[in-house]
């Protein structure tokens, strides 16, 4: 038995440990397939439940459906899955930034169920963030099962994300770009191949199970040079709407958190509000793919006035769904709001300049979607590739690039952090690889401390200290109390010169009379950034580290720089 075990161990080592690319490709494909399956499962179940509930939407009481869905969803998340709230993508980014992509196993299914309940009942949210969460957790847990290291685990998290997005939209390139641009934040050779393969695997799984799946039918768009100028205008408008959407989402969530209402009451209020809005404007309900399809194909029947209000209604409904207890993502709402914005823009253009020979309303809906995705996520490439892939609209690539780049740049100018990153930045947890903050956070204060220090007693007579100096090259001497061994202060060689030059003082002075007790100290609980800030403020090159009144060691800028360089090299190298 042990021989067989050893054989497989050796085989595994020879195959994978010398070069982990093959391992990452195989494990990444598995992650892509599994996350693809999760995405397909959510999509099919959502389609079924939306179809099942559709006949009931005409009744007056139907407004309670989203409330019931949100209630069940929040109850499931709070009491059964016991997940922390949130739509998931920031949690994945946080995990990648701070914990080497470690994610809980329960995250691989919990958001799928909760978002099914929310969106299936009519809540205004998208299924993409839950499948991203699920795919990432699948990748992370595959890495855990295989005992992979942090770097490899992060790659598999990216693979899971790419597989999930590729599967739900049948868009492998968008999946890959989203994983790298938004989740990992670094374009590294070692990441790209496994993630690309995982994305293709996810899309293929989706294609195999639902062969005729096309989210949005491709229609030929006649986009010409005349559309470039209006595209610029649309980009500005989508940037404004993106910023508004982000702010409303965040503010609504904050209000809900501040309220003293229990989670179930919040869910009922949020869901009922969405239900009531949905009775007058059904376009706000659920993920909204059907509305998008009709806008792209130019068959959207609402007039300018109603479409204009629908933009704000959808923003508000999404904020009430996600902020007040529902579960889901903002991807699909972005697409709906974007296409509505595009339609409004086109209709207004037609009102103002009726003879203007621009492209169809559907083309502007596409451009609006790109503008919103790029503006809200501040991920221009994801915006471009997603829209191109899901609509097959390669004819619109030039205006897509124009709208995407201007919208993401403008919204970045107004609101420097995207919706996904804002909360993490506020908490100081948005740490991209290779950045100063990330490197400092990855260095553990314990490994930076120099502990080989001779400590001196506070009752030591100065002559004895001078004798000690002759055999030591320390510049700092921690002073401790005899009985308790507690840290009392520090003797800095530079500060005792006047005593050292006066032999008459040698037998008259004790160390507790000349030690410096006001030196700022660090503790093991401090982050390295905090320690560096304290050093800068106090113009110190070294600082004592004291824990529970005991001297632990010294931390110096020289040592920090050494380890900083080592960490930087490690994070920016390909392996």
């Amino acid at each position, binding site marked *: 038995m042990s021989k067989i075990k050893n054989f497989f161990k050796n085989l595994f080592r020879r195959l994978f440990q010398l070069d982990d690319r093959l391992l990452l490709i195989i494990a990444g494909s598995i992650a892509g397939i599994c996350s693809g399956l999760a995405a397909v499962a959510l999509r099919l179940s959502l389609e079924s439940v939306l179809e099942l509930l559709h006949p009931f939407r005409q009744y007056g009481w139907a407004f309670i459906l989203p409330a019931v869905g949100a209630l069940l969803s929040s109850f499931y998340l709070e009491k059964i899955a016991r997940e*922390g*709230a949130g739509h998931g993508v920031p*949690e994945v980014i*946080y995990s990648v930034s701070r914990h080497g992509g470690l994610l*809980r196993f329960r995250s691989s299914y919990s958001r799928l169920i909760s978002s099914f309940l929310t969106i299936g009942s009519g809540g205004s949210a998208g299924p993409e963030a839950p499948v991203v969460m699920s795919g990432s957790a699948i990748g992370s847990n595959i890495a*855990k099962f295989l005992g992979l290291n942090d770097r490899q685990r992060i790659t598999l998290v990216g693979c899971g994300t790419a597989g999930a997005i590729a599967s739900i939209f049948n868009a492998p390139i968008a999946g890959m770009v989203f994983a790298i641009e938004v989740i990992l934040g670094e374009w590294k050779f070692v990441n790209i191949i496994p993630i690309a393969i995982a994305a293709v695997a996810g899309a293929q799984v989706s294609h195999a199970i639902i062969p005729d799946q096309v989210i949005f039918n491709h229609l030929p768009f006649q986009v010409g040079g005349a559309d470039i100028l209006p595209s610029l205008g649309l980009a500005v408008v989508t940037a404004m709407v993106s910023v508004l959407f982000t702010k409303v989402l965040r503010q609504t969530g904050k209000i809900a958190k501040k309220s003293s209402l229990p989670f179930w009451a919040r869910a009922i209020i949020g869901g009922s509000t969405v239900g009531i809005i949905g009775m007058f404007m059904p376009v706000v309900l659920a993920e909204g793919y059907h509305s998008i399809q009709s806008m792209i194909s130019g068959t959207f029947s609402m007039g300018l006035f109603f479409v204009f209000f629908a933009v704000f209604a959808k923003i508000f409904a999404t904020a009430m769904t996600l902020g007040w207890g529902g579960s889901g993502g903002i991807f699909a709402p972005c697409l709906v709001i974007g296409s509505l914005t595009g339609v409004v823009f086109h209709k207004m253009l037609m009102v103002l300049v009726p003879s203007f020979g621009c492209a169809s309303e559907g083309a502007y809906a596409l451009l609006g979607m790109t503008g919103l995705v790029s503006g809200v996520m501040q991920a221009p490439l994801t915006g471009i590739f997603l829209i191109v892939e899901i609509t097959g609209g390669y004819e619109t690539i030039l205006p897509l690039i124009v709208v995407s780049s201007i919208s993401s740049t403008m919204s970045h100018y107004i609101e420097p952090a995207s919706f996904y990153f804002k909360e993490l930045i506020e*908490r100081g947890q948005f740490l991209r690889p290779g950045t100063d903050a990330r490197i400092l956070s990855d260095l553990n204060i314990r490994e930076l401390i120099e502990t080989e220090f001779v400590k001196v007693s506070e009752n030591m007579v100065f002559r004895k200290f001078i004798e000690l100096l002759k055999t030591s090259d320390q510049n700092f001497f921690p002073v401790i109390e005899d009985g308790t061994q507690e840290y009392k202060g520090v003797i800095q060689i530079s500060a005792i010169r006047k005593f050292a030059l006066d032999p008459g003082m040698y037998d008259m002075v004790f160390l507790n009379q000349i030690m410096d007790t006001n030196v700022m100290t660090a503790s*093991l609980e401090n982050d390295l950034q905090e320690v560096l800030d304290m050093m800068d403020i106090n113009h110190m090159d070294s600082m004592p580290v004291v824990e*529970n009144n005991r001297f*632990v060691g010294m931390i110096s800028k020289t040592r920090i720089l050494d380890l900083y360089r080592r960490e930087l090299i490690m994070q920016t190298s390909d392996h």
Partner: protein
Amino acid sequence: MNYKLLHIFRNTPFGRETFLQSLYFCKTINAFPVAYIPKSDKFLMYFSNDAVQVDLDHSYLTSPDTAKGHAEDLFKEMQIKPMFYEPKNYTASTLPDISTNFDYLCCPRSVSDLSSKIGLGHIGPKVRRIIKHSTFPILITSPVFKPWKSISVFFGGSKNALNALKLGLKIAMSSGFALKIYTLLEKQDESYYKDLIKKEGLAEPVKQLSSPWHFYEKKDFNKMLYDVPHDSLIVLGAYGHGIIKDILLGSKMEQIQSTVTNNLLITGPYCSVEL
């Protein structure tokens, strides 16, 4: 020594008992207890290869207004300076990350299941996962505060058992209490175990700190457990095998803790102990 023990404070009479246990443990080995008073019913611990979410039962959130005061009173009673842990990072708004940079963690037998108050023969799945992944020893307390006056190490010869022996020696050194070693002769004879500790360089400290080594035949497992003094801290290594083996063969750790009510100090497979 500057060791720190993390205690998840439960503001109930049962929690008081376990907290007293932690305080006594720290006082005895000159470590510093740090109490965490949970504000939500769950938290996350990120280990090197796993993220363990601990779902606390509702008793951990009992009367939050008085929790800190009660904890401080107990600190004072034991003449220990109160120290409290505040999470710095949050994975989600209601999910704090608890640092794993501690030297010990005190756990009741189960943190997520109220039946642990009365049930003995069960170690909760979360406590098991923490033991499996932690780099520090886990103190599993007896249900009622019981000061321990000696240390008993269960030494079976494995890597974890060697860690447990080192830990036992370390605690004996810092506490001044006597150390007893108990070994069940399963596959090897006495000389094997004696040679093993010689090879590991532990023979000398064992000779200095330990009373005669107690060996038992395989069939005398229960007798060995009954011979352990009731007021002794039992130090043992978790065997670290998987759930299937546990179900088929049973877990020795559970067998031990269901028979004896002593405090247990458990070293997991990733735990490293230096003398």
